[in-house]
């Protein structure tokens, strides 16, 4: 009998020891938010002890939350809890709804549903920050226009609050960088071909195909800029390829990406929140890469000028393309810490 008691006590002790402390400094939680016919996973990693959580809104549409668990974002896990969310229709999200139901407004509601779940699980006294990259910049803007009260701060990184005006902005920015690189003697043939392509696209005007061509050209250009050491060195950046391959199903996430990207293709010609940005009054930090050819920094300046907050910061990355959190990950981390510590 005595042995049985000791055994039972040991088992209870063992399970108690395994029980996760909800706000430890090493959070590794995965939870699913079920809202309006969708199940959306949120992966929460990092230091929860200070109750400061940063919700990451990925690019795309169709990117994955965990794609951002690299570079400067992952390094922030040492100090804060990072919430990598798979948006409706993206990553490992599941659901059953029609295409027209998916709008930035509904996806903004999804993010606010996540906020409610985080407060339910970890407490109402959380310091919440919202970070949107690329398409996530547009979605984050919509979240804040819907309800900004839960957040202590907004960080837009190479975001797209005005995708409607993007095509014309790119037709101006591409030749500027191409001419700069030709003068510097970097990959001259490539940049001359870029100028030719832009001249052709200027004549053709916007079509879906031309938009895709520009987007592909932007990522291609970043490769040339990186090879010519114009962009920052990503060596030493924290990355775990095995985790990336294992954490989410490659097949499911890839097919979802294609589907949601097609479903939301209208955003490239219809969405412009510029006039509404004045309603955003929480502390904001706008971060942009000088060589961003996916969404040029003119859009960042536009966001900075129009946001209604009295506490706003402009951070320019001289050696970054579309992803400053990777190209200049150390500077990104420092600026993030500075902003969060000042506003939490």
């Amino acid at each position, binding site marked *: 009998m005595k042995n049985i008691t000791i055994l039972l006590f040991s088992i209870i002790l063992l399970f108690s020891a395994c029980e996760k402390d909800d706000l430890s400094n090493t959070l590794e939680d*995965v939870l699913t938010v079920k809202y309006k016919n969708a199940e959306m996973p949120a992966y929460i990693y990092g230091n929860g002890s200070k109750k400061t959580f940063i919700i990451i809104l990925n690019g795309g549409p169709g990117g994955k939350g965990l794609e951002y668990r690299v570079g400067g974002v992952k390094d922030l896990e040492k100090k804060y809890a990072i919430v990598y969310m798979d948006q409706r229709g993206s990553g490992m999200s599941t659901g059953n709804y029609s295409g027209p139901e998916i709008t930035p407004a509904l996806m903004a509601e999804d993010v606010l549903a996540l906020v409610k779940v985080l407060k339910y699980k970890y407490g109402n006294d959380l310091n919440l920050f919202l970070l949107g990259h690329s398409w996530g910049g547009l979605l984050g803007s919509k979240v804040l226009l819907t309800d900004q009260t839960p957040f202590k701060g907004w960080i837009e990184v190479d975001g797209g609050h005005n995708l409607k005006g993007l095509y014309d902005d790119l037709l101006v920015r591409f030749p500027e960088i191409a001419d700069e690189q030709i003068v510097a003697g970097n990959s001259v043939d490539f940049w001359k071909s870029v100028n030719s392509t832009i001249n052709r696209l200027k004549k053709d005007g916007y079509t879906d195909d031309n938009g895709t061509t520009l987007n592909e050209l932007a990522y291609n250009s970043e490769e040339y800029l990186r090879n010519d050491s114009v962009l920052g060195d990503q060596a030493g950046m924290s990355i775990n390829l095995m985790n990336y391959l294992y954490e989410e*199903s490659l097949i499911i996430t890839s*097919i979802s990406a294609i589907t949601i990207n097609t479903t939301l293709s209208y955003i490239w010609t219809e969405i412009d929140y510029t006039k509404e940005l004045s309603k955003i009054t929480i502390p904001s930090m706008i971060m942009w890469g000088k060589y961003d050819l996916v969404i040029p920094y003119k859009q960042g300046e536009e966001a900075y000028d129009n946001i209604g907050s009295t506490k706003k910061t402009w951070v320019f990355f001289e050696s970054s393309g579309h992803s400053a959190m990777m190209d200049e990950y150390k500077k990104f981390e420092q600026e993030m810490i500075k902003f969060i510590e000042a506003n939490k």
Partner: protein
Amino acid sequence: MKTAIIISIILLSFNIQLHAQSDTIKQQKFQSEKLNFNASYYGETGWYPGLKIGAEYIIFEKKKQKIKHHKKKGEFTKTKTNQFIITGNLGFYWQPHNYTSVFTNFAILYRHTTNKGFQYNFGISPLGLNSFFFNETYTVSDNGEVKKPFLSARFFYSPSIIVGIGHTMKHKLTAWFLNIHLTSLLPYNNAVNFSAVLELGFRFNIIKVKK
């Protein structure tokens, strides 16, 4: 949801039918040869682990025999077998971060067996049900109320196609096999999605026949 339950009942009842045995020894032997079971590793994307068990019944079989002459071996017979098989399966796989998938399906297979025992499988599964049971889930209602349900699941109609290879074995384990399943998940968000599965397992015969 109702459709999902109906499909489940049909599939399960079909599996039960496969287990039915006749009374006579002759029939038992006949059934013993035609009824096999299988158990396998069932890995979604290859590495998300799972297990599958199933039963299969040969509904049509044709053997082609040719007598061959060899200088050293002499006269021998070459046999090629073509079979059509119906199969019912039940299993699960585990996507560690997100959900546990439980599935059942009914498939029709064509199997070709060479004289040396190599097998090629091709099949379609028109009836399949896949259910994702999510890990820690929180439901948020339209009015913003948060609840943590005990269980949260989503069901998919999941027809699939199957291709594979195998080889016969000369004991209770009648064959090993390696199959690839391409399974669709319907409806998935606002469209469809797919999962690819690598299956590695054995077929076996557990019915003892009195002589």
